[in-house]
């Protein structure tokens, strides 16, 4: 048997055994190392006779390739076995809890304000603001509620001075005054914000939220008011149809004035809006009183329009099934977590107000 064949037989046999990586490396070096058996054979080529040389070289290369590829595949096999073994050892209990995370929430009143703004944005209202501390003039007198008017009794007011000139605004209506004083008609605004009345029991909180609406132009009438509120209520409660009732009422700053009720029923302890034969008062509105327009230097024979005021907290309670107004401001972690909204849930027109 030629040397070459012997080498091949010997190493094929060796490589058949179960080997580890270092044993294979040993074999590799035995064959192809500096003094390896295959390497030594290559050195021999030069000493061979011309006639033998070609065949010998060819045979040697074939054997070399064969062994080489065998070693390579053997090595791959072992490496992947080793990796698999390692991975097997690294296996963990994947049901262990993830790293802890915390979730922030947006308060339902803030969410509701964003929903309201989004709805009114669609029909061209922009958002205005006013200060929480107001003077008596903006809060009452300019709104056609002079001193010693019994309508002032409807608002239990917090005062900041003995002369009763500075107060915490009892409604968002002074924003109407501020808005109209600083610019020229038409006006089309909503003004959400904090409001205050010194009233505190189960259904009253000394602080609550209102959104004011004002639309003054040349020919805005009660039909527009009805249409706007109808649209708003439908959009807000995300229902196809609603039952709405306009009922005469009285506010000094609007004439005619109305209170708006929506129809509802109670089903399985939940309020269903838009059905049933019970009525729930949700807002006050009316045509802005000419005296108010005069007070802000708008000519009432040229301009007219409507205003409304809606209790935001009340809307949130109805929409989200919250029973107790006081709980809005109690900051109970459990309540905030339960009723709060994910900060990524931004109400928008295109994808709807709520998920």
């Amino acid at each position, binding site marked *: 048997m030629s040397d070459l064949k012997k080498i091949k037989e010997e190493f094929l046999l060796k490589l058949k055994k179960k080997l580890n990586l270092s044993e294979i490396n040993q074999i590799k070096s035995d064959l192809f190392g500096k003094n390896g058996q295959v390497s030594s054979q290559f050195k021999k080529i030069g000493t061979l006779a011309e006639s033998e040389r070609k065949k010998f070289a060819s045979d040697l290369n074939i054997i070399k390739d064969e062994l080489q590829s065998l070693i390579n595949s053997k090595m791959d096999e072992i490496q992947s076995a080793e990796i698999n073994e390692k991975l097997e050892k690294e296996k963990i209990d994947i049901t*262990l*809890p993830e*790293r*802890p995370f*915390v979730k*922030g*929430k*947006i*308060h339902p*009143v*803030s969410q509701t304000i964003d929903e309201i703004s989004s709805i009114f944005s*669609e*029909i*061209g*209202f*922009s*958002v205005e603001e006013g*200060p*929480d*501390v*107001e003077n008596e003039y*903006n809060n009452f007198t300019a709104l056609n509620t002079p001193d*010693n008017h*019994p309508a002032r009794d409807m608002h239990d007011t*917090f*005062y*900041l*001075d*003995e002369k*009763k000139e*500075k107060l*915490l605004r009892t409604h968002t209506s002074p924003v109407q005054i501020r808005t109209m004083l600083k610019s020229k008609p038409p006006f089309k605004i909503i003004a959400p914000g904090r409001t*205050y009345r*010194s009233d505190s029991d189960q259904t009253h909180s*000394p*602080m609550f939220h209102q959104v004011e609406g004002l639309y003054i132009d040349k020919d805005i009438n*009660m*039909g*527009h008011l*009805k249409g706007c509120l109808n*649209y708003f209520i439908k959009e807000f409660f995300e229902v196809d149809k609603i039952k709405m009732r*306009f*009922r*005469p*009422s009285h506010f000094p700053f609007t*004439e*005619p*004035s109305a209170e708006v009720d929506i129809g509802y029923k109670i089903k399985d302890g939940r309020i269903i809006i838009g059905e049933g034969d019970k009525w729930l008062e949700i807002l006050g509105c009316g*045509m802005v009183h*000419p005296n108010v327009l005069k007070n802000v230097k708008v000519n009432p024979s040229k301009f*007219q329009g409507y205003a409304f005021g809606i209790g935001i907290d009340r809307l949130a309670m109805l929409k989200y099934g919250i029973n107790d107004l006081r709980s809005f*401001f*109690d*900051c*109970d*972690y*459990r309540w*905030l977590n339960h009723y*709060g909204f994910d*900060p990524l849930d931004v109400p928008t027109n295109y994808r709807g107000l709520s998920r």
Partner: protein
Amino acid sequence: MKITFDWLRDHLKTNLKEKNLLNQLTNIGLEVESVENLSAENELFKVAKITKTEKHPNADRLKVCDVDIGNKNIKKVVCGASNAKEGLITVYAPPGAIIPKTKTKLVEAKIRGITSYGMLCSESELNLSDESDGITELSKSKYERNIGKNFFSKSKTNIIDLSITPNRPDCLGIRGIARDLAASGFGKLKDIKKEKIKSTIKQTLKVKINKENNQGCSIFGSCLITNVKNTESPQWLKNKLVSVGQKPISAIVDITNYVMLDINRPLHAYDADKIEKSIIVRNSKSGEEFTALDNKKYKLENGMCVISDNKGVLGLGGIIGGTRSGTEFHTKNILLESAYFDPRSIRKTAKKLNLDTDAKFRFERGIDPFSIEDGLNKAASLIKEICGGEISKIDVQKFENFKTKVIKFDPNLFEKISGFKISNKEMFKVLEDLGFKLKKEKKYLKLTIPSWRPDISQEVDIVEELVRIIGYDKISTIGPIKERTKSTLTQTQKLFHFLQRSIASKGYLETITWSFTDANYNNYFKDRFKEIKIINPISSELGVLRNSIYSNLIMFMSKNLDRGFKDLSIFEIGPVFTGSNPGEQNTIICGLSAGKKSRLSWIEKERNFDVFDAKKDVVQTLVEAGYNSDKFFIDNETPNYYHPGKSGRLFLNERKDQVAAYFGEIHPNILKKIDVKTDSLVGFEIFLDNLKLPKKSLNDQKTKFVISDYQKSERDFAFVVNKNVNAQDLINTISNIDQNLISNIKVFDVYEGDNIPEHQKSIAINVTIQSFDKTLNDNDLEKINNLIIKTVEDKTGAKIRS
């Protein structure tokens, strides 16, 4: 205003049912608040007699009474009233009865160990009067034979409680309500036969209205009725008053009440014999006193409208009479007053004295000045009918003449405001039914306003009357146009919403707390601001406007910690107040974290919240909002409620014009004083109003995309510096060397201790160097390297650590 359908029928002819009535009342703006049926609930209340009382064995103030509830049926009732005594006839409510005042249902209950089978009721509990001292005492002569019988007479009619808006004084009388209903088509208003006193006797008691500034009384009408016999009212009158929840007192008082409720004409009856010589209507003098019919003594200020005689004050005109001249059962001669008082004067006086009466409620809303004689005629005739006597002529003193108001009304205004059309015929009919007198004048209507409608003064008021009576349901619904010409939110409002959600997304729960707070808490956080007191707070714990959001947040954080939650982050975005004038307020986002950032778990180590958590939330939020953190400038000058060593102040740039935020640990002393139980308490305040809006809008920032693809190199430096040198100084120094080359700077270690001299520290910094023009070679890098070392050493006194 409480009414019954029966009483309405005195003025209204109708075949319609009560259910229709309730709807119609609400439809025309007389909102039905509640409908109550007394008789169904009240059949359980019995006339009963106490047959025996014993002291309660376990309570000094209580008695155990044997109560005869008829047919010798004796019940044991525990009672605390001092007037409960043997022989007293009173009102008994058995278990199951609902107490009218409190609406609570009685149950058989053990009171201090003794079972009480029901209850003996006070007048107040039965809604008969405000008398809550002791149980009801019924007259023996009248009720002895009624023991065991129902106390309340059976009534089938409901009490309808209406919420009358302050502009409608006329509807504080049944007739006014009937008139509105009739105008709206709900029946026909009955004519009432006007009684007219035919008398030849002179009114001999002199009445004078003093001519004074701010005289609150403009008309004083009166008549004398002599030789009356005051008695209990006849049953029809009693029933009438009881049917609307009023308590009958005596015929004379009941008649004045009846006339007030029926036609909204308040009257007052004086015992004429108790009046000293004459009646003088005048302004009070400071310090004058009188005892009113509510048995309270009132001390008057200057300028209140009083009815007086030569001896002194008899009563407050239009508000309340005095005991000195009150009528009693033995009263023989009566002076009946029917007057007009100025609403503003009434309101001012009543407010100052904190008085509220039926008369005041009506006068401050405006009584029909032309109803003076009608009221006197009606009441005097009834008194004569029931109590006998002789009526004098009516005497009317006037300080001022009332003129009827006339308005020129353009009928077109109706459609302009309401958005729908009605016929002239319909319009005229409604107005006439409401009592307006019409005269056509070309295209206008000249309208004479009824004297009972002080609320109507201009054209738009007429429009309201018409829409109200014709029906708000006739208003069409004009859908809005979906069009936007102006952006919904301003830049500042957008920033508000962005920051709000940005903070929430970092694990904070948004809270909303009241804008007022406890002065004690506020004191810790008010910094340089003045305390702003509320003059009339709902409680002393909510007595000041907040100067900082922290006071409320910490209070509620503490409550949550007490509930057993250990690690919590909350925030609020809202106003804090810097002064008591409108606009002296700032919008602030205040966040607060308590406890541990991470609590021991199978995977995490435990770590308290610290100042760098707060700093991260502040910086990250501002960066998200579009501010460049490379420009931020931070120092440690913070208000005294922060830990002086572990808190910081952030400016958007080195110019330090306005503070953008504070952050840090809350001062440990405050924690101790407020007694917050937590491992750590850190917070921040971002001042929304101090954030200059980013100059570039998001769109502008996105227009140009510049990056470098050349290789970048990182170099580490360790500098030894004095302890008082801030990391920020080193970073700024390095970044200013060459902003084109130095693209990132990172502090990766801070070390004090062995091998570092005392009062010094080592700061290790990693600098990334990258050019926009080329790949830097060793030479370039060496140059910048040396420049960094030299500049830092020169500018900060640092030494490079070798």
